[in-house]
Every structure is written in structure tokens, then in C-alpha cells.
């Protein structure tokens, strides 16, 4: 384990699985290499080479049949069992072929058999690995696993060469079978994979599901398959180019030595890349970039070949790139590209793509090469040019794939996007029927719900005037403003009836609706109402429809002059309600008079009325009002409606040191409601260390809401720096809490409680820093659903967490602050807190060596609660050195003043000097 972890990023519980997986691939490839050696020799001994195309065609057909059977088999028995079964079947079939007389037909069959096994076994192995390991594990462990495969190829080939010195080639079939059985036996000790039904895959729809439908449903799969086919073709052309140039530059006698030497070098290079480069490139550059390394090198080689006129060196380098990367880095990246696909899609498509598509691409490319050869166009320059074009296409498709790759993770992690959550509903005919049925319900709640739904969708014309016959006063009060729109008259006669309704609220609602529609008789009828509140509404409308200033109207003056007894309060509340519902700036002076009364009797309706009239003179009063939760939303709307003047006033209050914290903390969100670029810039500017933490968090939430609702720009560099600061803070706090997890001495009950509280507070603060980092990430990537990702990060499912990690890794590839990618990997990956701190060493100050050191540092924390709790716990422990640290800290820091009493109280416990 120790030796392994020196080279591989191995986590607890992974070693056994890694070794078994690597050994399985080793055995599988070693056996297949032996079979390949035997079949090539036996085939070419009995049959001419021009029979090979027939085998290719047969293989493609067989692959199609086998892939469908494999899909069903895997779904029923699981991937591990399917692979074990195939290994045993392969051993059995190979042994049978060994025992049969070596006729042309048997040799032909042997070639097809081994070709088929080569495809199916490797694909089944990677399907198993893809299920067993998460995408995050794959990035770390697929390199070493693939190295097992490369070693298997070397071992298989070496054994074959050695064995052929002593025995006939067809005996390799028996040895291969034995290795296959041994591999199957080894695999039986590996853990079973979970057999999962595809979501919604009932037997009925399973039979209907076609391969083509799968592709149409999964655009990523279509693109991935195209890329695999394209890369297969490009690699075949590379091979052809290499062999044709080698043949042209070496005599037939030299070819064997040349190939042996060159392949040996390539195998060593592949192994080195596998062990030391592959995993690192994938982790550093990401899966898509890793997948693009091979085409980039091939592109360079092919351009060199064209320019150098097919020079041997250029071709050797091109083939070198293919030979060293094809089975290492390229294989890892290719397998990882399958990981984001849903499990059932992988099960149903991977075998088909890796067999039928690959074989088909080979057949088509071979036909093309044959055509070129017929017209003597298979010259190095021509092949180099074709390869150049293919590599360019390969690269372009790879780059585009990133979008779809991220998209799959998005879909896997997605819950409901904010856009979907707040998108209004477009009503269709059927939904209108549903709402109209609800409107006529006798249940007031249902009827009111339907009215509100139509109001919120701006479809009030659908509310019939007959609803004003509803027996519920609540429904009438809600329906009257909804039906009394400018374009309708049908409700007026029905509303007039309601002016005499027994419920005061209904009379007011009817008066408001009718007066708003210009029915003056309604006002006159209610001026004599028994209730002062209703009369006040009537007085408002009488003044409102007149040209004179409202404060000069007799009715209004009469209300203003009333004492604040029960009647007077009712009348004033009524007047304010009326102003709130229909007032304008003409009413400002009336409100000014009422503001001067300095009474709590009608403060709420007064604020609502002020909010309505939109007079800038009220801005300071409205800002003051932000301290109260009641109607804060209305007040905010009123402030926002007054535009830049109000925004300037808010900024001024923010900068004023004398602003009450209870007002201050609601200013950021009010600024965010402006929804403008300027508001976004102001809030972004406030995300600095100088802004107090509590306000900064409000700024963060306000900016988050603004960015999610409006297409504003933010300074991404600035935001990413804040992400970096918060992630480092989360790790620093984790580092501080680690030594405190162990009791410092034989602690008494109360000291243990103090330690536990301190640890809990540190962990809470670390969690909060993480939350802030994710909120900032959402601001930096406004179109992404980071909220769902942060949810996935804390999932109990390892696979979901790994998907979140890979998504974040891919998303932050082009971060302006590259450190955030490393930091996110550390905080999101499956690591113990101690391991996280260890990996973050480069970003953190030296962590405390023990609890005593941690407490000494915490005494100087900016957060006063944390510093106080640390001091309190330090005093509880009764250690002299710590006690002295607390005394010194209290002298230096006024926020720790409250600890002085405790220092005195605990003096007798420690025998130490008391505070001076």
C-alpha cells in the first residue's frame, strides 16, 4: 500500500480493487495477445491474406449480434458476472478450437473468434470499470489500470516469442485459455456491481427502444460515437502511413528487426506515459483536453510529413505519438468520456460503438486506402494531408464535445433550474377550463386561488363578472379589483349591489372599484356610511377626482383633524388605505402632515401609502423603515421605483458610519432590486474585505439574486478572487478544528462541552465559507445551475459527489484564478478533513501542531464569538501557559473584555495570577 500510494493518488479502500482491476486487464490482454499471435500465424499459414476482408465483414456482423445479447446479459446479471461468463466461454471455445482439426474453416473461425473476443472482453472490462469506479476515481486510477493492460500485452508477446522456441504456435491457444480461466477466477473475488433497471425501462418499452432512438435521445452519444469512428480511421491511416514508409525505406530482411526494435521502444514509451503522465494530464487538463493530446501530436506529425515530403523521421514521430498514447492516455480519456452517460445508455450502446462502429470505421478506411492504392495515390504526402484534415476535424469535434460533456453532468446533477422555477405559465384552453371550474367553486380558498392565478398571469378577462354573486365576502374582496379593469364594464351593475353589503371590507372594495371607474354616485352613497373607515375611503375618492389639492378638501381636512381615538384611527387608516390603493404625488402633503403625528396607531398603512405616492422627499423615511420586516417588500419596491436618486441615497447610507446596523443590513438587497448594471457594480464593489462580514453576506445574496434575474455583467476576476478567499478560509478553519477534536488533557465535563462548542463553531464557519464560495461561483457562472451542484456535493451517494467534482473541474478549467480549480478539488473530493488540510498546505499558513497552539491562534481571530469561546475554553483547561495567553489577549483586544471576569473567577483553579 505504501509503495502504491507513492506513485498513485490512492484513497482508503481502493487498493484491493485497483490491483484486481489491473490484474484482470493484465490477464485479459496477455491471453488475447497470445491468441492473436496464434491466429495470425495459423491463418496466414493456410489462407491467403486477401481473405482477411471477409473476416472483417463477418466480425462486424457478429459484433452487432453479440452486442445486443451482451446488453441483455449485462442488464440481467451485472457487468462483473457478464465478464466472468465471457472469460470462461472464451477459454472453453478456444480450447474446443484447439482440439478441432486445423481445416481452412476452423482457422477462419479461429480468426473471427479471437477478433470477437478481443472486442467484447475489453469492452466488458471497461463497462465493469466504469460502473465500479466513479468519474473522479477514474481520473486517478484508470492510468494504473491501463498500465496493467500494457504490461499484459508485453508479457503475452514476450511469452509467445519464448514459447515458440520450444513448441508449436497452436499450443498458445491452450496457454491463453488457462490465463483466461485464471483471470475469471480472480475476478470472482472482486465486488459485484449493482444491477439496476434503466429508469422507466419496463419490458414493454424495452422492446420498443431502438438503438437509433437511443442516439436521437442522447446527442452526446452520437457525437462521441462519431469521434470514436473518426479517431479509429485516423489511427488506421497513421498505421498504414508508417508501414508503407517503413517498407519503402527498409529491405524486407530488415523489416522484422526494425519493427521489433521500434515496437519495443513504443511499448516502453506507452508504459512510461501510462504510469507517470496519463493520469496527471487527465487531472490537470481535464478529460476533453486529454482526449485532444493525441490528435494534436498526430496533426503536428502529419503536417511535418507533408512538408518534409514523407521523410522517415516525421512519420516515425507520428507513429510514435500513436503508439505511445493510443493504449495509455488516449484510452484513459476515451473511457472517461463514457462516464457521464447514464448507466443504462452506457450498457446499451458501448458494446455496439466499440465493436460495430470501430470495425465499420476500419472497414471503410481500409476500402478507402485500397482505392487510393489502386490509383497510386497512397503516397506519404497524400496520406499526410488526409491525416491532417482528419486530425483538424477530430480536434474541432473534441472541443465541441466539452459543451455536451458538461451538459450531461448538468443533467445528472440538475434539480430544477431557477429559470424553470420562476417561469410564468402560458395558459392553454385546457388549463383555462381548469381555472374557470375553480373560479366557480363554493370553497372560497379555491376560488380565490383561481383569481390570484389569473391575476398573476395577466388574464383577468377570464374572470366572469358573475363571480360578484359569490357568497363569500373574501372572494368578493379579491374579485372586485380583479374584474374592475379599464376595458370592462360588465361588472359595474353587480358591484353597485355590493355597496350595501353587510361586510365593511366588501363595501370598501366595491367603492374603490366603482370610484376608480368613475361612478361618482357610489362615492356619494358611501359618504354617509356608518363606519368611519368607509367614509374615509369615500372622502378620498371625492378629493381624488377633484382638481383641487387634496389637503384643501373639507372631507380630508376633517379626517386629519380627528383625534387618535378609535373613530379617528379608523378614519385615518381608511384614508391611508385609499391613498395606498390609488393615490399619487398630489397626496404627498397629506402624508407629510400624517407623518408629523408620530403615532404608532397607523404606522403600517402610512408606510404603505408613502410607498405608493413615489415622492423623493420620503426616501430617507422609507430607508429608515427597512429596519422592520413587516411590509419590507413594499417599501423596497417604493424605493426602487424612485430610481437613481433613491439608489444614491442608499449608497450614501451604506457609507455612513452612523447608519444603524438594523437598517444597514437590508440595504444590499434593496440595491439588488434595482436590477441594473449600476446596482450590480455597486454590489460587486462591496465584496471586499473592508465590508463587515455580515453585510458582505447580504451583498453576496443580493448580487446573487440580481445576477439570476437580470442580464448584468460582473467582474469575474474579482468574484473568483473572493471564491479563492472563501475556499482558503474554509480549509483554514478546518485546519484549526483538527487538533481540537482530541481532548487536550483529562478534561472535566464542562471543559469537554466548551471544546465541543468551539469545534462546532469552527465547523459551522467552515461550512459557511463553503456556502459563500458556491454562491460566488453561481454569480461567476450565471447560466449554470451551481445550486444543484452544491446540493450534489453533500450527497450521500459517492457517484453523485464524483459527478459534481468532475463538473466543477471541467467548469473551472478556464478560471481567471487557476487556484480555485485546485481548491475546489480539495474541498469537494472524498477526503478526510486531515487529508484536505494536508493537500491544501500550499494555500494555508502553517496549521497548529496541537490544541494548545490552536487555542492561542484562535484568541486572535477577527470573529469575536470565536475568540471569546477559544479564550473561555482555554481558561477552562486551567493550563498556565494558555491562561497567560488569554490574559495577554484580553489586554490587547477590547472584544475579549468579557473574559476578564472569567480570568478572575478561575484564578483559584490554576493558582495563577489574576488579571491586572
Amino acid at each position, binding site marked *: 500500500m505504501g509503495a502504491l500510494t507513492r506513485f498513485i493518488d490512492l484513497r482508503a479502500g481502493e487498493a484491493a480493487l485497483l490491483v484486481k482491476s489491473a490484474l484482470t486487464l493484465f490477464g485479459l490482454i496477455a491471453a488475447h495477445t497470445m491468441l492473436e499471435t496464434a491466429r495470425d500465424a495459423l491463418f496466414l499459414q493456410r489462407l491467403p491474406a486477401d481473405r482477411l476482408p471477409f473476416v472483417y465483414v463477418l466480425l462486424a456482423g457478429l459484433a452487432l449480434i453479440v452486442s445486443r445479447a451482451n446488453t441483455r446479459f449485462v442488464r440481467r446479471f451485472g457487468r462483473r458476472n457478464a465478464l466472468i461468463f465471457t472469460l470462461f466461454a472464451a477459454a472453453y471455445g478456444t480450447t474446443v478450437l484447439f482440439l478441432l482439426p486445423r481445416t481452412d474453416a476452423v482457422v477462419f473461425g479461429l480468426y473471427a473468434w479471437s477478433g470477437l473476443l478481443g472486442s467484447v472482453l475489453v469492452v466488458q472490462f471497461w463497462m465493469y470499470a466504469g460502473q465500479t469506479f466513479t468519474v473522479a476515481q477514474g481520473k486517478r486510477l484508470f492510468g494504473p489500470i491501463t498500465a496493467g493492460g500494457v504490461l499484459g500485452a508485453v508479457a503475452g508477446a514476450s511469452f509467445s516469442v519464448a514459447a515458440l522456441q520450444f513448441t508449436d504456435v497452436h499450443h498458445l491457444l491452450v496457454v491463453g485459455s488457462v490465463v483466461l480461466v485464471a483471470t475469471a477466477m480472480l475476478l470472482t473475488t472482486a465486488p459485484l456491481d449493482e444491477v439496476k433497471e434503466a429508469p422507466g425501462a419496463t419490458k414493454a418499452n424495452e422492446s420498443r427502444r431502438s438503438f437509433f432512438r437511443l442516439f436521437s435521445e442522447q446527442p452526446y452519444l452520437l457525437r462521441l460515437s462519431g469521434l470514436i469512428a473518426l479517431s479509429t480511421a485516423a489511427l488506421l491511416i497513421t498505421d498504414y502511413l508508417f508501414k508503407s514508409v517503413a517498407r519503402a525505406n527498409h529491405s524486407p530482411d530488415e523489416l522484422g528487426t526494425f519493427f521489433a526494435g521500434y515496437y519495443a521502444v513504443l511499448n516502453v514509451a506507452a508504459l512510461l506515459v501510462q504510469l507517470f503522465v496519463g493520469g496527471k494530464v487527465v487531472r490537470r487538463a481535464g478529460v476533453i483536453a486529454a482526449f485532444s493530446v493525441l490528435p494534436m501530436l498526430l496533426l503536428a506529425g502529419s503536417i511535418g510529413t507533408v512538408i518534409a515530403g514523407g521523410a522517415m523521421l516525421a512519420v516515425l514521430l507520428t507513429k510514435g505519438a500513436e503508439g505511445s498514447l493510443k493504449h495509455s492516455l488516449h484510452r484513459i480519456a476515451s473511457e472517461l468520456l463514457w462516464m457521464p452517460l447514464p448507466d443504462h445508455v452506457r450498457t446499451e450502446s458501448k458494446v455496439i460503438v466499440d465493436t460495430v462502429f470501430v470495425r465499420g470505421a476500419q472497414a471503410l478506411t481500409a476500402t478507402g486506402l485500397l482505392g487510393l492504392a489502386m490509383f497510386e495515390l497512397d503516397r506519404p504526402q497524400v496520406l499526410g494531408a488526409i491525416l491532417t484534415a482528419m486530425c483538424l476535424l477530430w480536434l474541432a469535434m473534441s472541443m465541441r464535445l466539452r459543451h455536451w460533456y458538461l451538459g450531461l453532468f448538468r443533467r445528472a446533477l440538475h434539480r430544477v433550474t431557477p429559470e*424553470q422555477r420562476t417561469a410564468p405559465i402560458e395558459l392553454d384552453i385546457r388549463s383555462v377550463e381548469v381555472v374557470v371550474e375553480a373560479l366557480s367553486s363554493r370553497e372560497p380558498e379555491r376560488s380565490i386561488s383561481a383569481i390570484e392565478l389569473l391575476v398573476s398571469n395577466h388574464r383577468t378577462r377570464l374572470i366572469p363578472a358573475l363571480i360578484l354573486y359569490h357568497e363569500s365576502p373574501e372572494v368578493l374582496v379579491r374579485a372586485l379589483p380583479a374584474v374592475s379593469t379599464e376595458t370592462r364594464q360588465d361588472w359595474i351593475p353587480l358591484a353597485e349591489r355590493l355597496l350595501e353589503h353587510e361586510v365593511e371590507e366588501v363595501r370598501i372594495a366595491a367603492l374603490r372599484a366603482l370610484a376608480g371607474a368613475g361612478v361618482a354616485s357610489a362615492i356619494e352613497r358611501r359618504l354617509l356610511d356608518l363606519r368611519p373607515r368607509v367614509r374615509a375611503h369615500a372622502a378620498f375618492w371625492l378629493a381624488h377626482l377633484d382638481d383641487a389639492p387634496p389637503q384643501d378638501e373639507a372631507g380630508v381636512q376633517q379626517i386629519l383633524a380627528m383625534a387618535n381615538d378609535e373613530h379617528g384611527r379608523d378614519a385615518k387608516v381608511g384614508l391611508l388605505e385609499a391613498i395606498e390603493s390609488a393615490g399619487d404625488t398630489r397626496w404627498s402633503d397629506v402624508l407629510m402632515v400624517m407623518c408629523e403625528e408620530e403615532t404608532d396607531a397607523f404606522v403600517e398603512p402610512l408606510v404603505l401609502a408613502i410607498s405608493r405616492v413615489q415622492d423623493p422627499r420620503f426616501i430617507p423615511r422609507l430607508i429608515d423603515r427597512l*429596519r422592520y*420586516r413587516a411590509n419590507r417588500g413594499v417599501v423596497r419596491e417604493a424605493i426602487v421605483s424612485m430610481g437613481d436618486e433613491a439608489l444614491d441615497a442608499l449608497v450614501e447610507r451604506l457609507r455612513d458610519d452612523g447608519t444603524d446596523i438594523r437598517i444597514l443590513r437590508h440595504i444590499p438587497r434593496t440595491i439588488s432590486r434595482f436590477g441594473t448594471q449600476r446596482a450590480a457594480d455597486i454590489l460587486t464593489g462591496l465584496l471586499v474585505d473592508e465590508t463587515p462580514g455580515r453585510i458582505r453576506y447580504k451583498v453576496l445574496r443580493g448580487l446573487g439574486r440580481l445576477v439570476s434575474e437580470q442580464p448584468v455583467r460582473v467582474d469575474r476576476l474579482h468574484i473568483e478572487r473572493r471564491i479563492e478567499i472563501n475556499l482558503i478560509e474554509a480549509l483554514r478553519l478546518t485546519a484549526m478544528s483538527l487538533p481540537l477534536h482530541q481532548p487536550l488533557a483529562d478534561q472535566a465535563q464542562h471543559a469537554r462541552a466548551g471544546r465541543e462548542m468551539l469545534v462546532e463553531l469552527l465547523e459551522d464557519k467552515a461550512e459557511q465559507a463553503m456556502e459563500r464560495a458556491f454562491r460566488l461561483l453561481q454569480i461567476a457562472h450565471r447560466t449554470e445551475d451551481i445550486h444543484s451542484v452544491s446540493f450534489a456535493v453533500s450527497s450521500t451517494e459517492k457517484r453523485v459527489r464524483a459527478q459534481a467534482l468532475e463538473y466543477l473541474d471541467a467548469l473551472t478549467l478556464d478560471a481567471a484564478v487557476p487556484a480555485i480549480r485546485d481548491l475546489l478539488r480539495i474541498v469537494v473530493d472524498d477526503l478526510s478533513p486531515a487529508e484536505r488540510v494536508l493537500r491544501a498546505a500550499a494555500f494555508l499558513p502553517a496549521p497548529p501542531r496541537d490544541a494548545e497552539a490552536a487555542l492561542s491562534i484562535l484568541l486572535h481571530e477577527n470573529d*469575536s*464569538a470565536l475568540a*471569546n469561546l477559544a479564550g473561555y475554553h482555554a481558561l477552562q483547561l486551567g493550563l498556565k501557559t494558555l491562561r497567560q495567553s488569554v490574559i495577554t489577549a484580553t489586554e490587547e483586544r477590547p472584544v475579549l473584555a*468579557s473574559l476578564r471576569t472569567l480570568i478572575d473567577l478561575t484564578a483559584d483553579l490554576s493558582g495563577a495570577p489574576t488579571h491586572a
Partner: protein
Amino acid sequence: MLEVAHRIELELLMRTFLGMEPPDRVMRQLASVVRDFDAPPGTVLYERGDPPGELFMIADGTVALIGEDGSRWVFEGQSLVGVLDSTLDRPMTRRAVVETRAHGARLMLADYLDVLDDNFDFAKTAMERGCRMVHENALALAPDHVFPPPSEDPILDERGGDPRPLEMVERLMVLHRSSLFDAAPLQPLASLAALAEEERWEAGDVIERQGETSMYLRCVASGSVCAERDDPRVVADFGPSDVVAGIAALGLTEAGYTIRATRPTRTLKLLKEDLFDVAEDHFGLMGTFFRCNGLENERIRNLGSALDRVD
């Protein structure tokens, strides 16, 4: 994507269910995460031991929650089922069976909390309403046991009737020990401890009168207080670390009880406005209140069932 008519039906259902004029933003968010259900009698919504997390809003019909001991809690229209175990994050403790055809909406608690976190005022209203409902249930079902027995364990070291004011850390400890805050994250509690004001009372002092506007939440730091009311008659004592009037105090806009100190007492006074301001920034605190109200609901219902059996 849900069919529009279907989504409208769900939105209507929830508007009706919530019954407190939720903002459009909330409605749209909720409508996007709920699914409707229409269950005939005998349908099992969940079994005992099932994993928690799903809530059922019963619009109409009857659902019985049957405990292991056979006790039955029957819920009719406008009820929320599954919320108790889900907020406590424990396997379902009762079997939910539809008794008369039930219709409603189902959603995951995590999605619901997500919407609440995004719309704090709505969350606050929902929480206050929940607290009031549980308290009204308590008054109706078990007026002699509206509150749990008082705590008697002293928290503070008050050697010699210590006259010094409580230090910040001590205020934090008092809050942390109270049943209302014991599961709360410490960070917001530290903020509350900094905002809390200490009050001292002599035996017999009236701390609050029934019917007055209730702007504060009080936690007993030392000593004890008594809460009284009539119709129904309730007398309850509260000791160190108890929140006076329990979780119900959060839902009441006017004092439901007259509160008196029964011996020299120190209380921590928190302005509810401050409490909610802190909770707005630390939604975990709000989650704690929902959890606490859930536990209170369970206690009352268990008492109700026990009393039923005695009857």
C-alpha cells in the same frame, strides 16, 4: 415538462392548500417541484421504516398515520403528512394509509426547504402559522400538558448570587442548552448571543401580560417563571434554558400568556425581528425551528392518543 393544465391544477391546489396568499414567485417555484396524487382508499403512501424526505399535501380526503402501537392520527384536507419524520431526518415512524379517497400534491422536503430558503418571508409566515396551529392543537387536546415539564438543571455557575452580567459565552451556552436552539448551528447562535439582552426579575414580577404585543422571545438563564392563561386554563413553569412559552412564542403576535417570575430570575431577551434577521442569513436556524415544532407536534399528538386510550 408538465402539461400546462396539469401544472395549473397543481398550482391551484397549492394556493388553496397554503391559504396565505403566497407570492407568485413561491407558487411558481413550488409548482415546478411538486407532483399530484390521487389515491383510492387503502393506498399506502409510505410504510414504517421507509426513508424520510417526501411530503404529502392532502387537499381533500382522509389519511391515517398508524403507529407501531396501533395508535392512529387522522388527517383530513389541508394537512401536510410526512413532514415530522422528514424534518427530523429519521425513518418514517408511522404507516400512512388513505382512508377516504385522497387528492393532493407530493414533494420532496429538500425542494420545499429550498423554496423556503429562497423566499424567507414566506418561510417565516409558514413557520409562524405552523407554530400557532400546533399550539392551538395543544390547547385543544391536552390543556394540562401544553408545555413539557420545566428544566431544573442550573446552567450558570452563580456562586454567591453572582451579580455580574452574563458574558457573551455564557449567553451562548444558555441559548445552546435550550430545546429551541439545541440543534441549531452555532454560528447564528453566536450572533443571537451577541444581540440578546439580559433582564433580571424578582419573584412576583410580571414579565409580560397576556394580550400585549409580543415582540420578544425570552430564554430563562436562571431562576424560574410561570405562564398563565384562561380559557382554557393553563399554568406552566419554565426553568433554566427553557424558552418561555416554547416554540409557540415564535408564532404568537400577541402574548398568549401572562408571565411572572416565581423566584429571582435572569432571562435573555431576544427581539423576534433580530431573530428572524439572523435566521434569514442562516437558514439552518429556521430548519431548527421547523424541527422543534415537529417534535412539539409529535409530543402533543402522542399525548392526545394516550388521552384517547384513557378515555
